[in-house]
Every structure is written in structure tokens, then in C-alpha cells.
């Protein structure tokens, strides 16, 4: 019974695990609920199967043959009984398998039935961040952000998935299962959150050096909060009025930053890296790697490869007194 100790330990941890903020079993959306329930049904049935099989095995280890029995001699009665038992067991397995297939198909129908949602997003996986475009019928209300999705609570949101370089996989465990983003193809997935909150996800398909740091956050707000957020996101960045941030902006605009990043309302128009128009309002930088604070922004600028080795953000040569204004400017892009 030595095995029992680690087992108990693990079970305790397992129960704690259901609470994880990226846990598939901590469901916060209808799809995730369906999946979590289904998971527990499977666990119950399959666990029973395992215990029964192991019980049979342990019983089988009793020595039933006489010591000197000829190994080639078999008893027809025993053979018959064993055949019957195995047939029944196989029959039950078949029934289980068929039930599970049916159950699985039904759940699959639910999972992939896309209701008409109020909102359609285009999410593009890139090495190693997520570009998020909010689509709208009015072109002026289309905007792009990165690594953070805001959705209204209780409403289905359709996400179109694309990839610009290699295959990525979009996965918000609390809300629903994952879906791959494949270059040259477009996939769709629907997410919906039951209550306001912050749900983390990350890329699930190995995509190169920084696959580990390709996080995304989904923030579910009330409809009003969401609308307020969206109206703000559509707008351009407001020019700073305190001198430090003004200096930061000058540094930003005269440095390599603008080759890749965009800040709407300024000359910075790069399209190959995350849009920074409202970067200060986002929870994280570096695709879910650091929380957005002035210090973290500075650290990120000074040594991106210390945080995310191999990231496409270069180390740029800044004078020591330029770091703080630049970080301050970016932090101020609320």
C-alpha cells in the first residue's frame, strides 16, 4: 500500500488543481461546463473500469493450479467459464465505447454550433504574440490590439483564427477547448463567459523558441463596460502633456520602435509588432509575460531577450536617461 501515499497526495493536489486560473476544469463558460461535466463522466466510468480490471488481475494472481499440473492440460469447464466472462466484459466494453461515441458526438454538436454573436474577432497567431482585430461594419470602428481580448459577458463571441507564420493554437481553458491557427487557412471558434472575470490562455501548438511565452488574456466585462472599452480602443492615442512623457514620445518616434510598432495618432506606423496605441491599458506586455508596469516596460525595452530569449523585439541602444521617459510614455498610453 506504499502506492497509496503518493496517490492521496496527488488526489489532494488534483482537487486544488480545479481552481487554477488556466484550468480546463474550472469552467466559466457554457462550452467549458459541458466539457468539464463530460470529463468527470468519463473519469467515473473509466476509473471504474480500471479498478475492476485491476481487481480481476489481482484475483488472477492467486495460484489455482496444482503444483505439478501439466501446463498443456486445460479444463473445459474453466475454459468455458472464462470465455463467458470475457465475452461479457468485451460486450460491456463495446456498450461503453458506443455510449461514449454518442455522448462525444452530442457534445461536439454543442461545442461547434455557432450562434450568431454580436461580435466577431479576427485573431492572428504570430511568433510569439496574438494580434486581435475587432471587426465592425463601419471601417472606422475596426481596430487592432494585441494579446488581450475583451468580451461582453453572457454573449457568444465568434473568433476567426489565422496565423501569419507557423501553426499556433488558441486556447482559453476556462471558456472552451482549443482550435489551431494554421497559415493559409481560417478556423473559427466561439467563446462565451458566464460572469465577468479574467481568463488566461496560451498557445498550445509548439511554435518555436518562445512557445512558452505566448499568452493571451480574455477579459469579460458587462456590456456597458465593454462598450466603453471598445469606444476608447477605437480612438487614437492622446498626446501626452507632461514633459517626461513628451520626451518619451520623442525618443519613441526617433528610435527603431516605429519600424515595427504602431501608435495611432503618431507617425509610428509599423505593422509587424503589437499595436501600442493603448498599450498602457492592457494587463500584460510581452504576450502575457510581464504585467504592465513602468518598471516592467523599462526592463522589457532594455533587455527583451532576458525576458523572452529569441523574441523578435531587438535590444536597442538607449542612453541611460532615455529609458525612464520612454517607459513612462508607453505606460501612459492608456
Amino acid at each position: 500500500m506504499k502506492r497509496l501515499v503518493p496517490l492521496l497526495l496527488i488526489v489532494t493536489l488534483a482537487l486544488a488543481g480545479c481552481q487554477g486560473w488556466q484550468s480546463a476544469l474550472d469552467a466559466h463558460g457554457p462550452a467549458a461546463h459541458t466539457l468539464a461535466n463530460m470529463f468527470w463522466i468519463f473519469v467515473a466510468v473509466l476509473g471504474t473500469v480500471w479498478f475492476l480490471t485491476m481487481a480481476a488481475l489481482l484475483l488472477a494472481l492467486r495460484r489455482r493450479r496444482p503444483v505439478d499440473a501439466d501446463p498443456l492440460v486445460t479444463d473445459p469447464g474453466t475454459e468455458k467459464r472464462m470465455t463467458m466472462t470475457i465475452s461479457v466484459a468485451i460486450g460491456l466494453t463495446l456498450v461503453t465505447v458506443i455510449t461514449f461515441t454518442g455522448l462525444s458526438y452530442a457534445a461536439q454538436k454543442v461545442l461547434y454550433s455557432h450562434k450568431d454573436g454580436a461580435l466577431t474577432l479576427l485573431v492572428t497567431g504570430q511568433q510569439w504574440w496574438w494580434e486581435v482585430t475587432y471587426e465592425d461594419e463601419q471601417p472606422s470602428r475596426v481596430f487592432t490590439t494585441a494579446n488581450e481580448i475583451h468580451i461582453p459577458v453572457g454573449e457568444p463571441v465568434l473568433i476567426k483564427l489565422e496565423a501569419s507564420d507557423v501553426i499556433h493554437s488558441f486556447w482559453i481553458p476556462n471558456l472552451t477547448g482549443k482550435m489551431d491557427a494554421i497559415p493559409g487557412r481560417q478556423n473559427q471558434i466561439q467563446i462565451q463567459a458566464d460572469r465577468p472575470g479574467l481568463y488566461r490562455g496560451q498557445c498550445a501548438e509548439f511554435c518555436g523558441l518562445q512557445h512558452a511565452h505566448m499568452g493571451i488574456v480574455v477579459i469579460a466585462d458587462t456590456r456597458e463596460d465593454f462598450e466603453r472599452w471598445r469606444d476608447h480602443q477605437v480612438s487614437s492615442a492622446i498626446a501626452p502633456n507632461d514633459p517626461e512623457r513628451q520626451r518619451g514620445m520623442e525618443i519613441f518616434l526617433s528610435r527603431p520602435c516605429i519600424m515595427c510598432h504602431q501608435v495611432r495618432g503618431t507617425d509610428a506606423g509599423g505593422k509587424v509588432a503589437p499595436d501600442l496605441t493603448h498599450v498602457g491599458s492592457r494587463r500584460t506586455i510581452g504576450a502575457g509575460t510581464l504585467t504592465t508596469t513602468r518598471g516592467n516596460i523599462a526592463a522589457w525595452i532594455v533587455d527583451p531577450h532576458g525576458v523572452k530569449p529569441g523574441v523578435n523585439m531587438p535590444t536597442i541602444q538607449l542612453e541611460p536617461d532615455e529609458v525612464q521617459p520612454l517607459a513612462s510614455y508607453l505606460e501612459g498610453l492608456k
Partner: protein
Amino acid sequence: MTQAITAHERDAVPEVTRLATGERGGAPGITSEADRPPDPQELRDDQVDGPELTARLAKTWGTEKGLIGALSTVDHKVIGRRFIVTAIIFLFLGGLSAVVMRLQLAQPENNLVGPDLYNQLFTMHGVTMMFLFGVPIGEAFAVYLVPLMVGTRNIGFPRLNAFSYYVYLFGGLMIWVAFMRNIGPDVGWFAYVPLSGPEFSPGKRADVWAQMITFTEVSGIAIAISTVVTAFKLRAPGMTLDRIPLFVWAELVNSFVIIFALPAVVTASAFLLMDRLIGTHIFNPAEGGDALLYQHLFWFFGHPEVYIIFLPATGWVSAIVVTFARRQVFGYIPLVLSLIATGFLSFGLWVHHMFTTGLPQLGASFFTASSMLIAIPNGIQIFCWIATLWDGRPVFRAPLLFVIGFFFIFVAGGLSGIMLASVPLDTQVHDTFFVVAHFHYVLIGGNVFPLIGAIYYWFPKFTGRMMSERLGKWHFGLAFIGFNVAFFPMHITGLMGMPRRVYTYMPEMGWANLNMISTIGAVLFFGSFLLFLHNIVASARRGALAGPNPWNAGTLEWAAASPPMPQNFDRIPVVTNREPLWAHRDTLPVVAGLSVENREQIVSTVTAGRADLRETTPEPSIWPFLTAIATTILFIGSMFTPWAFVWGTPPLALALIGWFWPKPSTEDEK
């Protein structure tokens, strides 16, 4: 107990017409050289007996001393032994890379290895375990044991077999040397495009992966064909289809799966190489290609691959269960049929690796059904083994312990596989540590535990010495606990949202404790293998002498000496029962009349196993080795320039001609 078969019946040797075809070799009406009576000058084994026969045969079938002799050998036991040792060395290398990865993951934001090295490590781990250990170890056992178990003297195509070993060895060396030189592939063992494609994998790293595939698959297919031919055509007279040992059945079905599955991965890797090196557009969506085509091709191989790794293990389990339950197997026919069913079904499951790629739903559900259905043949196997144990008198020696461990772990892994077969559940657990846990339960449970059991079981046959039982039990205990401590928590880490193939994670994710437990388990598990290594080395030197049949088992390999003489058997046995040594305890019925001076062996018919021909089998030759060298030069050269196919072919062709050209001293000229 009622006696089903009387001792008399099972000893009865059928009349000659059921043991031999008696047909002529040439076409009707033609005077063929095949039917010429044998040279009366040539000594035959009905003229000599006892130690003299043994010694003369050993000289005829032996391997010459020295380096050239060692490289020229075509003895399936010598090649098989090298094969097994090489595969196990790769098992240790793969395990070592896993331990480094586990140490890196033990804590959040650990800095032991960076992302670049980590990616190479997990790729090397997967590649080594799958292509350099998983597939070859099953084939290696086939090379060693199938000829012995079917009662013949060498494998079907001995030179091809030797060639395959060298090609495999060179392929494995190439990728490990590349890894040590920082050219190790870093794209995962599956090497999905476009990540492994020309644009996103600069340099030669992905090419090394793709070319290693070519090496191991050429080798794998060739051995599979040798194994099939051995099992079909070289069986001892009287070994009808229903008397073939289950191990041989397993290897036979396995070989068929290999023959039909490996071409898919060769196709995939060849396409990848062409995309990378000569600019084809097969996987380039901008020019009409498609990235998912790669995944289809890869998994069309990749799922059968799992069964390629598992099927030989069913053979080991069957052999061990029967011997240690002291009872002939229960449900021989269902077991064989479920092996065959597994082989067929394995080709209908590949899409369950692609459930999250956005394939049409109905198609995906079909693959849910087929994936779950494989539970049936596997269930039959498990239940039949349990029934055999039930009605037997189990003897708890190390091999059986590992088989019991196999039951515990493999069944758990199989059941979590049912979850992965379900499309909706798979969308949550796919590409997470849950999957990592699942397939380690299946592969370590389904292959490594039986393998260790098999090594404890056949070690006396390979070396003539017993392994230490005490260390074996310690090894089992440590391995069983270490394994479960390492891999069970991964189910939970995966459900908590930890994706696979991440080189680190952040402390706030809450995965740290579980990862630490996994690492401790992994170290323990690796430690148990060091114990195993010690046991092997110590026992090979000082273990108790085994004798030909230390376990008192029933199949033919135990009728040979331990370790077997070069000729395996002094005379080819005649088989009247599935467990010939249990049926014939006092005397072994045999065939006589084969040459003592030439390498003659019996060729029999496919189904009835009737002796048909006395064919000679090839002498030792250095050419297979040289051919393997020429092949290696061509393969490695072609990673750098397509012209390698032009300048690499003449040496290869020369080596092949040398291989097939009859030597002046062979039977032809006598």
C-alpha cells in the same frame, strides 16, 4: 481436472506427407538443377551426431574473428545482440535528455537550459524514443528471437539484416553527433510544417531530422520484410499457422504494420526535404500547397507507430505470461485475431491527432468511433492474459512483476486514451501535459515495462547467465513508483492548462508543485534504470549459469543452447504443438539430412508449414557494411546538395553489386 489432450496425442508426430511437400523444385517436365541429388561427398547431419555435429556446424555457421569478421557477420544473433544493445543505449540517451528537461521544469522560470536547447532536447527525446528506440527495439528482438522461435538457423535475408543494422546505427549516430554540434533538430519529433519548413527552420537542423527518418525507415522496412519472410517461409516443419508462438505472431503483424506505415513518414520527410532544399511547394499554401497535408501524412504513420511500439510488447507479455503462469495461453485464436485487428485498425485512427485543426465535424466523429473501437481488440488481449494467469499458477519472478506493472500502467493509459479519442474532450487536453501523461502511460507501460520483463526473461538465453532476481525486484519497485510519481501528476498539470513543449512557465500559474513531484519521480525512474544497467553488467559477468531452459518454458528458443550456438539448432526441430518443449519432454523430433558443410536451412510452406526446400543462406560478407557506408554518404550528402544523388549512386551501386555477386567459393562452384 479433465484432460483435454492426452500426452500421447501431443507427442504424436504426423506422417511425413503432412510434414513435407515432396514436390520437385523445377517446373514440370524440366530437368532442373534444383532437383539434383546432393553431392555425396558433402557431409550431412544424418551421418554425424553429438558434439562432433555441434562443432562442425558451429564452424560452418560461425563468424570469423577480427574486425573484418565482426563487420561481415550475418548471424542474426550477433546482429540482433548489437541491435538490442544499441537500442538500449539510445533508450538511456533519450532518458537522459528527459531528465534534463524535467530538471528545467522542476521550478517555474528555471534557467538550467534556455529555449533553444530545450527545444532540441525534447525533439531529441521524442526522436530517440520513437525512431531510435521504440521501433528498433521491437525489431531487434524479432531479429534475435524470431528465427530461434520458428526453429531455423538464420533470418530470412541475413545480409539485408546486417545492412539494416548499420544504416540504423549510422542514422542514430548522425543525429546525436549533430545534436552535440548544436545542429540538433528543434522542431519536435513530429516536425510540423511550416515551423520545420525552409522559412522558419534555418540551417540544417530540420534536415537532420528528416534525413534521420530516411535512415531509420529504410532500416525498419528492410527488417520488417526479413521478419515476415522468416515467419512465413523458414518455420520448422509442422509449425502450422496455429502453432506459431504468439511472440512471432506479434512480430509478424508488427512487420506488416511497419511495411505499410513507414512509407508515409518517409513520404512526409522526403516532401519536407524537397521543400527545404530544392524549393518545391508541397506545403506552401501561397503556391497551392497545404500545411495540413503534412500532418495527414505524418499521422498516417504516426498512429500505427504507436502500435509498432506496442505490438512487439504484446509478444513479450504473451511469452512471459504463459511461462510464468505455467499454463498454455488461454484464447490463442482470439489473441491472434485481435493482434491482426489492431494492425488493421491502427490505420484508421490517425485523424484523432488532428481534432483541433478544424477538420469537418462528421469526419472527425468517425475517427472518434474508430479510435474507441481499438479498445475491443486490446481489451480481448488484456482479458485473455488475465484469464491465463487466473487458471495458472503464477510464479512471481522479475519478468512477471514487470508484466503486472504493465497491466497497471498500460490499462490506465489506454483508458485515458478513450478520453483523447473523444473530439470535444480532446479540444481541452490535446497538446497539454495530459497527453504527455497519457502516452507515457501507454508507451512506457505498453512497451518499456514489458521490455524490461523481456530482458529479464531472455537474458539467460542471450548470455547464458541469469540476472539478479533481488536487484530485479528492487528495479521493479523503484521503476513502478518512480514512473507513477513522475507521470500521474502530469494528467493534472495538463488539466490545469499547462501546454506541452514549453521550456518554462510562470510561478503564478500554480503548476510548480506538481512539476516538482514529476521531476522527483523522473529522477527516481531514471535511477531505477541505472540499477538495471548495473544488474545487466554485473550479471553478464558473474551471473549464475543458466542452462538451455532455465525457466522451463515451452517455445523453441529454449531448445537451443544458452547462448545459442551459431547454428542455433544442431538439427531443425519438428513441431507438433504450440509449446513444443512442453509437449516433448524427453526427445525432440527433428529433421535430418541437411548439409554440415554448407549453410543449408529448411524452407517451408506458408500456411501448413510443410518442409519444401533445403536452401542455402548467404555467407558472411563485408559488402552490406560497405553498402551501409555508401548509403550514409549519399543520405548525408543529399542534405547539402541534390547532386549527392548523382555522385553518391556509383559507389552505392558498386557496393550492391559486390553484395549480390556470388563468391567463387559458394555453392555454385562446388
